[in-house]
């Protein structure tokens, strides 16, 4: 006969790894694209200085809003944790360096050369 403690334990829900990977890929793609477009806009506007990174983080925050618009009412059901939705790919080198690259290119093209 099983002890009483085991009877109270719930069966943990399984996570579909294919869907999880697909969701993270969608978020990653959106984050990279938004970083590129934000860099272009910031470069065209002629923003200089460290406060230019604030626009990058604001743009990455807009990806969270985009995920909510896509139907992510409960982030734990789509991205396992809130940290994944908020911070996955935000501080990755691809995103940050893409933002800096396009910011630099378009600022130089518009305002320097």
């Amino acid at each position, binding site marked *: 006969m099983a002890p009483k403690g085991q009877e109270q334990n719930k069966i943990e829900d399984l996570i*579909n*790894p294919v*869907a999880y990977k697909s*969701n993270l890929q*969608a*978020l990653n793609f*959106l984050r990279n694209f938004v970083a590129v*477009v934000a860099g272009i806009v910031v470069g*065209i*506007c002629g923003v200089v200085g460290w406060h230019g990174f604030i626009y990058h983080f604001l743009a990455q925050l807009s990806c969270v809003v985009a995920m909510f618009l896509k139907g992510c009412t409960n982030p734990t059901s789509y991205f396992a944790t809130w940290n994944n939705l908020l911070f996955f790919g935000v501080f990755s080198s691809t995103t940050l360096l893409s933002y800096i690259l396009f910011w630099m290119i378009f600022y130089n093209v518009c305002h320097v050369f």
Partner: protein
Amino acid sequence: MVRVSTAGLLTLSGLAGLVHTTFAVIQYRQLLKLSQEEFEALPATIVLELCISTIVALLGAYILAGPIKVIVMPAKGRNMDIGSLRTDLVSFNMRSRAMPLDIPPLQPH
């Protein structure tokens, strides 16, 4: 024939608009240099074109990213296909299947 989706067209249009805005800013700055004026701010038309191009490009990317799916499989309604998703129970094809089970142990010489 290359098929382009609506989202792809939107993204390309937005990016083309951003490139056009870049050329507009370059021309505006050249005009300022000719009239020997300092650059203070972009004109409203260029800012408007920048905003519209950004919105169109981001809309295209939003559609291109695709839908998101629920990752949690509840306890009820599971089928037998989920067995292939449990990495602990994944089987690998290896040569051990071809080996007979009654191999005698090696004897020391």
